[in-house]
């Protein structure tokens, strides 16, 4: 019961002064008042003092009042001796009554204080669990826990730290200083708190074991480091982290007995930290699973793309090698052409994979030079002549239009777009390659007359391995082509967009002009 300790010196002084004043006030009317009434007035003073400053000051006042009563009012006055046994008995009764009633009244007061503190604790705990359960995300829950702690203790700040290679702040509230990385002293104290499985504090937080920190020579510790309490967060025997409460604590109902609340807070926090860490582990596992799925998709897609040209080559070669058959010249040419074109195809698939790898590894440095768009489009058309056989490919661009771009990256992007257009369009369909100036940019478009892309698929066309459901079987390809387009165009400082309708799909690449608008012809 130390709730009134701090001010007991003041209490003692006030009670001594009050006793003096009472003596001065009553003494002139000593004979008229009667001993019993004087005694009651002293008793009243004792009770008031006890109820205000608690039991110890109350006891002190009981003794002081008794002595003053004896000295100034009981014959022989101005002496501590008592002549009449009657008066001696009165004095003893007075002392006993004042001690007992003083004690009772101060106990009642303490009980009321404690009850108030419990009620406040319950309220805080309730607010805490309400605040915590409002968040699905453990980190948010810990932040609101910190906020509740700051409010409950009227403290400058609070933070939850987790151990690892070094202590890191998982959540915090209050003064931004609460988010600080722990100092060496704090780290030391945290280890101490963990070792004793109990809070360690120093300065004026009024928490746990008090410690005074000795600042290194020539340095004064900043305020924050002087007032801090560190509460270990444990689930079972497992350390989840530490709650760091910055001092000094303000006028709070928990000021005098903070441990009950803190331990409740600590166990809530420990569970939340554990939850946060499990969540992190789950997210990590999820990421791994996704990477694994991606790898599986890559393997399935790539193995098919590599196996198909290999199958054609193998079929041609084993046919040639069969000595039982005398092939015609025409057959031999066809087989050799197969081997040649399928080897090219194999090469393209492998290049795609390598390109994607380079984009993802970030090792590609674009070499931006002025490039004539018309030539770029004609080149891309020529390179894809085999893939687009049977389709009509038209090129339309201002002859002087130049963009600032990495020529080989943009050419490859265009090749991929043309191949894509060819894959999704039928024989005799037209594929239009156009370029024009739009604002400060050049807009290059590749338009096909294919069936178009469903609106729900449109946002995903640049994702790896994405192929619209209905085409997943029909169209053969690595599923990497458009991902590479986006990667290359963006590396080269441009943007790629897609629009689609049932009448066809248009991909647009916008690139910065090599010469200002006014200067172009």
């Amino acid at each position, binding site marked *: 019961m130390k709730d009134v300790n701090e001010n007991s010196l003041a209490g003692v002084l006030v009670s001594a002064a009050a006793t003096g004043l009472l003596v001065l006030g009553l003494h002139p009317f000593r004979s008229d008042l009667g001993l019993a009434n004087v005694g009651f007035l002293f008793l009243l003073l004792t009770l008031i003092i006890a109820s205000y400053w608690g039991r110890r000051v109350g006891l002190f006042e009981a003794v002081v009042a008794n002595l003053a009563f004896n000295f100034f009012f009981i014959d022989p006055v101005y002496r501590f001796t008592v002549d009449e046994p009657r008066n001696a008995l009165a004095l003893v009764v007075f002392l006993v009554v004042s001690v007992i009633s003083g004690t009772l009244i101060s106990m009642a007061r303490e009980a009321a204080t404690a009850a108030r503190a419990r009620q406040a604790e319950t309220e805080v705990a309730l607010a805490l669990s309400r605040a915590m359960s409002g968040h699905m995300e453990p980190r948010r829950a810990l932040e609101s826990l910190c906020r509740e702690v700051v409010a409950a203790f009227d403290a400058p700040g609070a933070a939850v730290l987790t151990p690892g290679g070094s202590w890191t702040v998982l959540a915090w509230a209050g003064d931004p200083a609460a988010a600080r990385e722990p100092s060496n002293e704090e780290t030391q104290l945290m280890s101490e708190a963990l070792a004793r499985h109990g809070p360690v504090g120093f300065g004026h937080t009024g928490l746990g074991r008090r410690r005074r920190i000795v600042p290194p020579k020539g340095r004064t510790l900043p305020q924050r480091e002087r007032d801090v309490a560190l509460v270990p967060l444990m689930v079972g025997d497992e350390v989840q982290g530490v709650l760091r409460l910055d001092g000094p604590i303000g006028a709070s109902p928990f000021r005098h007995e903070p441990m009950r609340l803190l331990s409740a807070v600590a166990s809530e926090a420990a569970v939340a930290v554990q939850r946060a860490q499990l969540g992190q582990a789950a997210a990590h596992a999820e990421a791994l699973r996704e990477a694994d799925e991606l790898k599986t998709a890559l*393997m*399935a*897609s790539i*193995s*098919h793309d590599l*196996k*198909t040209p*290999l*199958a*054609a*080559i*193998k*079929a*041609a070669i*084993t*046919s040639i090698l*069969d000595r039982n*058959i*005398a*092939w*015609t010249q025409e*057959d031999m040419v*066809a*087989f050799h*052409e*197969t081997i040649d*074109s*399928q080897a090219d195809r194999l090469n393209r698939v492998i290049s795609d994979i390598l390109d994607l790898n380079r984009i993802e590894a970030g090792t590609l440095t674009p070499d931006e030079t002025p490039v004539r768009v018309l030539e770029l489009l004609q080149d891309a058309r020529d390179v894809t002549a085999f893939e687009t056989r049977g389709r009509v490919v038209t090129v339309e661009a201002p002859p002087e239009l130049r963009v600032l771009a990495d020529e080989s990256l943009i050419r490859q992007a265009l090749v991929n777009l043309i191949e894509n257009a060819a894959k999704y369009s039928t024989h005799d369909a037209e594929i239009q390659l156009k370029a024009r100036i739009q604002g400060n940019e050049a807009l290059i478009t590749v338009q096909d007359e294919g069936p178009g892309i469903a609106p729900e698929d449109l946002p995903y066309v640049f994702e790896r391995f994405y192929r619209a459901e209905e085409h997943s*079987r*029909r*169209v*053969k390809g690595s599923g990497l082509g458009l991902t590479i387009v986006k990667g290359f165009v963006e590396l080269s400082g441009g943007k790629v967009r897609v629009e689609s309708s049932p009448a066809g799909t248009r991909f647009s690449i916008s690139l910065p002009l090599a010469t200002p608008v006014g200067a172009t012809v």
Partner: protein
Amino acid sequence: MSEVRSGPRVLVVEDEAQIRYALRRYLESNGYQVREAEDGATALREFELFKPDVMLLDLMLPDMGGVDIVRELRQTHETPIVVLSAMGDERTKVSALDEGADDYLTKPVGMEELLARLRVALRHGTRSSGKDARISIGELVVDVDRRLVTLQGNEVHLTPTEYALLKYLAVHAGKVLTHTMILREVWGAGYTDTAVLRTAMNQLRAKLDVDGAKPLIRTEPRIGYRLLDEA
């Protein structure tokens, strides 16, 4: 390289023009009569018109899956079907076999092996169309009427399960039977525990493992089993 017009008829279903060309020329040079189809719809149409003795079917077609073609044809025809597939679609391969395809080839494949598989498929096609009460595969004889199995002339004693298993394999000698098909046939519909099948298969193999006898049952990894029919 005279092209014998009376040879077996094979329908080649493959969407890669260059593979299709090589297949056609090679098969023609080996006496087959060849028709080509580059997609599923053409394949189904050609099947009815050409009435092939065997069909070579790529599983990835522009308009429909090879599995759907197998399912559709199996409702009315017993014609042997050999599926051709790349590594990436093993699951598709198994479902094609479950639907009744006879064999599978993984791309890339050499032409001689392809020819050998077509021969086996053709033989199987002629056998399962007849009603043999006695099946001879090399030194193994399964007498269905008398429920008697002999190997090199000696009787082999089999449990009812082992006998059912061997009979099913023997009737379909040369054909790949998937785990699902064998479980359904021997243990009944809804049975999916391949461990039971593996155990029975091991026992059957042990009983057929006689000095001087060639191993008859081949494991097709992750797919099923096949009783070799290469005599």
